[in-house]
């Protein structure tokens, strides 16, 4: 696989060169089901067909020069797309709770590293009494584990069409069965003021049970804090990847819909046309995703970087729903052939 070379110590003084550095194995399957039939309704044939397709694949790294199994690079046996993070136990409930819990000062809640009730509480996975990122290697990931996978699984589509008595309908659904997303450091659309204190507040943050307060200790987000709360990818930050905020971005979307009527020849001939049809069509008219239970500000189909191959640097496009949005469209038409 043509990819970035293993990370080098900073004294190298440049980005590692790209090359054919990895062996990758992808295994998957595809299933297509087609069904077409007709039956009579009101003495006229109703023709219909359904085509379902579903596919899945999983990629593993078979070879990469990373003998220390650093989590910052590919490593042998890695499932491509895996996400590492802490396990969120909840929020601290009291100062006693903080004192009795494993030492979590590595996670920076404030400049002075002072923890308060309402701050996120991570599980001490390795039982060493300290919450940290270890050596950032597979052997010592600190208190982190694999908390999801960012690649789409079970991508599917369904094409349904039917016609009867010159009326016709076509529907095309498309979607992803399983995919995780962790909003990254710059994802202000998701984090709102948890990212930067001066950001605008997404309206869903103001719904009850979202922002922590002493009266509302079981909220979705933790205590409001100052500037250090960047929902960063850095393991030491308060909203670093963790189980609680992994988003399920599986979705289904009505990608295309066509409804129309073929004008009968007898009528068409009257206006000296060979054929005529009237139709209404639409794109991206409807979608559903578990993510919508939290927010509709982010489109699950639009969370990845849109041009990562042409422009590998995240400077150009970090994803996080900052892409050009997916547009809905409705078309109404008359088509006449002379």
């Amino acid at each position: 696989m043509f990819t970035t070379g293993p990370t080098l110590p900073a004294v190298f003084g440049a980005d590692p060169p790209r090359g054919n550095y990895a062996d990758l194995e992808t295994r998957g399957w595809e299933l297509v089901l087609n069904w077409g039939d007709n039956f009579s309704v009101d003495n006229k044939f109703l023709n219909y067909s359904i085509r379902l397709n579903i596919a899945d694949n999983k990629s593993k790294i078979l070879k990469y020069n990373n003998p220390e199994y650093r989590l910052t690079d590919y490593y042998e046996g890695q499932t491509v797309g895996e996400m590492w993070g802490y396990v969120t136990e909840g929020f601290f409930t009291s100062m006693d709770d903080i004192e009795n819990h494993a030492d979590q000062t590595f996670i920076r809640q404030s400049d002075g590293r002072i923890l308060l009730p309402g701050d996120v509480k991570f599980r001490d996975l390795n039982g060493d009494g300290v919450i940290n990122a270890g050596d950032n290697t597979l052997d010592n990931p600190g208190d982190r584990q694999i908390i999801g996978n960012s690649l789409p699984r079970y991508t599917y589509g369904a094409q349904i069409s039917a016609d009867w008595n010159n009326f016709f309908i076509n529907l095309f659904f498309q979607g992803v069965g399983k995919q995780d997303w962790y909003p990254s450091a710059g994802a202000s659309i998701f984090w709102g003021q948890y990212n930067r204190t001066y950001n605008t507040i997404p309206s869903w943050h103001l719904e009850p049970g979202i922002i922590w307060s002493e009266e509302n200790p079981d909220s979705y987000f933790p205590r409001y804090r100052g500037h250090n709360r960047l929902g960063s990818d850095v393991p030491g930050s308060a909203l670093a990847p963790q189980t609680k905020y992994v988003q399920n971005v599986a979705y289904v979307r009505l990608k295309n819909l066509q409804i129309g009527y073929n004008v009968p020849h007898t009528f068409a001939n009257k206006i000296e046309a060979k054929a005529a049809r009237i139709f209404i069509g639409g794109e991206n008219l409807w979608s559903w995703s578990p993510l919508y239970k939290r927010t509709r500000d982010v489109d699950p189909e639009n969370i990845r970087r849109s041009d990562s191959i042409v422009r590998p640097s995240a400077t150009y496009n970090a994803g996080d729903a900052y892409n050009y949005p997916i547009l809905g469209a409705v078309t109404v038409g008359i088509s006449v052939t002379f």
Partner: protein
Amino acid sequence: MKNTAILGALISFVLIGCNEDFLEELPQDAVGAAPVFGSESGLQLYSYSFYNVLPDAMDIFTGDYISDYGSRRDITLYLSPGAFSANESSGWSWSELRNINHFIVNNDDEDIPLEVRQHYQALARFFRAWFYFDKVKRFGDVPWIGEALDVDDPALYNARDPRTLVMDSVIADLNYATTYLKPAPDPTRSLITRNVAHAFLSRVALFEGTFRKYHTNYGLEDTSDDLLAIAVTAAEAVMESGHYQIHTGSGPAASYRDLFVSESPVASEVILAWIANESLSVMHAANWHYTSSTTGIGFNLTRDFVNTYLNLDGTPFTNTPGWETTVFSEEVRDRDRRLSQTIRTEGYSRISGGTTIIMPPSFDYTNTGYHPIKLVQDDMIKDTWTLTTSSLPIIRYAEILLNFAEAKAELGTLTDADWAKTVGTLRARGGITGGLNNVPIVADSYLQEYYFPEISDPALLEIRRERGIELVMEGFRFYDLVRWKKGELMEKVFNGIYVPALNLPMDLNEDGDLDVAFYQNSLPNEVIPGVEYLNVAETTEDGSVNPRILSNGDHGEILWFWNHPRVWEEKHYLYPIPETDRLFNPALGQNPGW
């Protein structure tokens, strides 16, 4: 048959016509090695990329943000208890070095005259020295790398080399630079010349010489004198070149500040500068940072430091009876004229829409009352955003004089003549009339009590006073305190102007308008319009701790941020190696205490 013969002839012609040169095509969208290292213009073009190593305007005007004499409105992360660790550390970037080393290794095309190649080699080695000096100041021991390493070079995982080795290499690079750089001065003050290399060498050698002298735990005191002697020789080379002098052309009341607010560098004194250019939109944000109540850190001088400015007659202000309780408008009178060019005092004015307006210290910005103006241009339109058009000195002649004087004082060889041409000259520029010609013989009790109790040499005390005053806000202080092993001075509470009583409106700049008054808990019944009233009760109206109080409750010096301790420990003399880099190469180890 005939056709075959012609075809055969053609083929052989084509085959003969081919040679390797013909097949060699240079890339059209990138520069290969040959055009760069094969011509003088190529070497020159490459050499411009080295200049990224130098500090930019932002680095310069924020250079004193961690210091003892500057208050700030936010937490100093590095000095807050428990706040800073190897995870927050930074500065372990090596890309500039790779660029320089690539040049040094490849600059060997014999078609180019030797002295041209040596000039550019000297330029590259000057910048390598600059790069490594920065690294040693920050981290102490660092790996010495003399080439652009390959991806599989085991040296990438080397341990750090001792600072003695690295500093020897830095000085060797600078000796090469002072030998082979072209001696001709650069009138723009933006390029590296032989004098710039001498000047920088004096800075480097003074730093390392005094560092080793005062950090006795390193056991390197024996090597200190040799380095100090290098500092003296290098400074002398600059002084004897005749290219530079202390700028006095605008008189004692304005010459000093000319150096920091002029659009083009004051070429008589400035040796190397960061050059601003409004038409190319090369500007900086010093105005913004030193006037905004939100942007930047709100840097203000402390009273302890302002006290060190001498009276115009050359006597210490702190020998004046009652100096502790002197109010601002009186204490700034008849002082070293550099004070009124460093902070807002009587007569300071600015330009707003073409109109000159008198400006007192503004407590919208200042926490201590000592409101800096040294780096601020007069036109207020430049206060918002990156619109300051001054060129800022990176090295200037005054520093070289101070390097010379300090190194000689440390060596015990400072003469009256040395004094007169260094500290004496600088004080004369500030309008001071006394004590300009002779090495002082009385140790100043204020400096000993408040700053350097362990120093008994009167000349050394005065040179340290002078260095603080002359170079304030130019980014020297942190590493001056480091090399003097005086980091604990940064623990001092920031103190401000003396307030004789509560609810007493004061006219700070003697323009007839009352400017500020201090109260506790509730405003006085009669509030004078135009006066800024500031609460100095220990808790504010909403019950939180008030960062601004008076030292004696209802009177005294302003104490700013008294509730946030800053702690300096032995470990702070070196920054920690960033944790991610240490994990990547455990052979780097970690600096003690981190």
